[in-house]
């Protein structure tokens, strides 16, 4: 009980103290990368509730030990939380350098516990009450709210995700594997002409423009490879490419990472989930490094559709839950902190006796964060999220 009060007042204090360190970058220089962990990652294994006896009691096989000298124990964060040891060399140094913060008990009001419903909910970023526009994602609304000369948004995915769909035609291009295009410039012009006046005119033209941008960037990578420079693999390679494009041209980006639906055998300090964390951490650290000086003006937000059950299931895994833990990274982030409303985790504080409650509703949370980053006024936040923003002092 006392801890609960203390935590609440600490959260309030940090929000109030934010005035000391205002986000300084002008909106046109500010960069935002939104990373979606699809599948509902087990947030309890990321930010480990080391103060909860109940956690160790109900996760006999998959819990991670309190911080100690053992390399398999949690990395120390504060009296309540530890970090997964797979992030020792990537996110943890970022955290201690004050460039990473976590927001537990974050999520939606959507109680379907369905991957697809909840992902859609988050990407739409609209109130569940009343009618929703199912073709309008909140990053699209952000892009249209910012002036055209301030926003250049792109999704680094094979398909344009819901979060980027809407009134503005935003481009997409996956950067996992790249090949030299065969359609030449003249043919591109001829093809674009056929689409003039059709509903596909914008995506076709935009696609050819992005193709040019990406190829220009990648020439540098190919040169480096030819000099036998060590090249990254997997998500890290993708993340570094994203950074190079965001440095040069695009300032609002989206990428998703799958494989988090750990119903069976998720492991603990090592094992399947640890491997996923390790790969994601390496990618995000690579992204930060590649951004160089621009990292100062960059914010990376990492989310997932929901958390998972607090108790492990019969298969050393976890099932669909509710509240999650969001990550906020960046050179100008007020890091080295766990932010937002929090409670101690015990059996009686679990939501529906099953998972985390949502104490930090995502629309208010993002509204507060984006308002600070882009200097949005209350009306603009309301337009994007249909609600007022809540500033919990992330930047």
């Amino acid at each position, binding site marked *: 009980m006392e801890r609960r009060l203390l935590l609440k007042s600490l959260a309030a204090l940090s929000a109030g103290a934010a005035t000391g360190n205002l986000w300084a970058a002008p909106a046109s220089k500010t960069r935002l990368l939104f990373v979606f962990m*699809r*599948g509902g990652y087990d947030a309890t294994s990321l930010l480990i509730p080391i103060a909860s006896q109940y956690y160790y009691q109900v996760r006999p096989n998959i819990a991670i030990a309190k911080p100690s000298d053992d390399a398999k124990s949690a990395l120390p964060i504060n009296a309540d939380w530890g970090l997964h040891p797979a992030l020792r060399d990537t996110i943890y140094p970022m955290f201690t350098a004050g460039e990473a913060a976590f927001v537990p008990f974050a999520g939606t009001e959507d109680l*379907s*516990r*369905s*991957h*697809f*419903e909840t992902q859609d909910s988050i990407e739409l970023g609209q109130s569940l009450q009343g009618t929703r526009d199912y*073709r309008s994602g909140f990053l699209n609304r952000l892009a249209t709210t910012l002036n055209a000369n301030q926003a250049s948004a792109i*999704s680094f*995915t*094979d*398909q*344009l*995700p*819901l979060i980027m*769909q809407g009134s503005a*035609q935003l*481009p*997409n*291009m*996956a950067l996992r594997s790249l090949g030299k*295009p*065969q*359609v030449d410039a003249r*043919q*591109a012009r*001829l*093809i674009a*002409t*056929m*689409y*003039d*006046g*059709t509903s*596909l005119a914008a*995506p*076709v033209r*935009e*696609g*050819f423009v*992005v*193709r040019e941008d990406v190829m220009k960037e990648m020439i540098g990578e190919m040169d480096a490879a030819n000099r036998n420079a060590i090249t990254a693999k997997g998500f890290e390679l993708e993340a570094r490419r994203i950074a190079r494009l965001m440095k040069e041209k695009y300032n609002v980006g989206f990428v998703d990472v*799958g*494989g988090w*639906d750990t*119903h*069976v055998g998720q492991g603990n300090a090592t094992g399947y989930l640890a491997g996923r964390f390790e790969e994601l951490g390496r990618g995000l650290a690579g992204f930060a490094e590649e951004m160089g000086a621009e990292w100062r003006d960059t914010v990376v937000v990492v989310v997932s559709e929901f958390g998972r059950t607090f108790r492990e*299931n*019969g*298969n050393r*895994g976890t*099932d*669909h839950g509710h509240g999650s833990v969001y990550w906020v990274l960046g050179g100008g982030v007020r890091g080295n902190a766990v932010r937002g409303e929090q409670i101690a985790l015990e059996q009686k504080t679990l939501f*529906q006796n099953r998972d985390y409650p949502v104490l930090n509703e995502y629309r208010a949370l993002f509204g507060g964060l984006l308002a600070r980053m882009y200097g949005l006024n209350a009306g603009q936040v309301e337009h994007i999220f249909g609600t007022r923003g809540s500033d919990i002092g992330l930047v």
Partner: protein
Amino acid sequence: MQSLSSTLRALLRGAGAAALLGGCAATGGGDTAGVPGPAQLVGAVNRVSWGVSQSTWQQVEKVGYPAWLEGQLRPTPAPLPAAAQAQIDSLTIARKTMPQLVADLDAQRKAAEQLTVDDEKKAAQQAYQQELTRLAREAATRSLLRDLYSPNQLQEQMTWFWMNHFNVHQGKSNLRVLVGDYEDTAIRPHALGKFRDLLGATLRHPAMIRYLDNEQNAANRLNENYARELMELHTLGVEGGYSQRDVQELARILTGVGVNLGSAEPKVKKELQAQYVHTGLFEFNPNRHDYGAKQFLGQPITGRGLAEVDEALDRLSRHPATARYVSRKLAVYFVADEPPPALVARMADVFRSTDGDIAAVLRTLFTSTDFARSLGAKFKDPVHYVVSSVRLTYDDKVILNTGPMLGWLARMAQPLYGRQTPDGYALTQTGWASPGQMTTRFEIAKAIGSGNAGLFKADGPQPQQRAAFPQLASAFYYQSLQQTLGPKTRQTLEQATSPQEWNTLLLSSPELMYR
């Protein structure tokens, strides 16, 4: 060659065509007021099939559209072209049953584990993984060959539809050895049959049970994964009115439904021995079943074993929400991203009155004016784009290698058996028509149009290669297709500097992005 107008009259005999006429008259979209152009029947064939080609069009001309459509709805076994059938016959998955394949692969895996020299072990494990991947690729090859060449085009299209509806992902566990059989024995035979049979077949297939973790689901150690998706995605839909409690109760009902790949069977208590089931690789293990009473969708279910599962599936497949949900999804696939609610309601009525007869529901759809009105306006997803392009380009000249097609589908993020999550791929335009997707399509158009995509270069020790220049500027093009192209496309085609470029531009045209 018959004249177009007499062809048209022949085609229009029958009820289906009457609806087509009605639809066309309503939109005024014919050559002259109230009379549809042949393009509209080409459009109908284009939609019902994996894409119109000269030979499919000739079949339609021969029997008339209504009879052709009826044949599509109630298909009888029809041979593939010999060159396609020979390719399928040579596949491992066609020569061995799934239990055999699983046993062979399992032996290979165990042998690899036994090795003690690290490098040998690593190589053996790699070989095992490669064999799994090869088998899944065989399944995808068979599927594409049928899509391209089967006279029963609708059955093949519905096979893709249901594979997507009851999606499984080949990347999980050993599913790569299971997906071919799943498609061939659980989905395809029921693709135009009764929904209840289809649902039951998926539940009894190890691919589904394994994919959604039900082999882990046991009394007092519940795993809700399958139970939830069974209602949310397979039957009722997320707004179908079930609760979290129903998910848990269905999970209890499903306890004990699992997979047994071997010959060893569990020791079952004497009084429950009669309940044990082990058919093929499917297993119902009474030891793992929760025999307590359940309350499911507002009705009690008496705890009594596998029969509970059948009762639950009966309840789910006859639920009005399922009729609506499945009918709407079919209408999204075959009519429009936002199908007319009245059409969906009529389809749902037929679904209920025929106890889920898929062909009957589709007949209602295909003979509706909404269908006729929608022709040419449904955006092709990547698989439709790729298959229809190859059908149009090469018609019945059977390709020797599906590899390029599989690669294109992967590039466009719609590979067969490659959707990781159980919701399946989107059936609507959003997402598939994005800038990155369009740019990739044009690359594929160029690969096909140039004739050097590798479709006629067989794999193997003595790679066979046949010259196969694309036959896009065909009689069929000049008789039918050309009339569907807008002035911009025609003008652009005139600027092509080579036949290859002409092909590329045609396959890149806006008209060929829709079905």
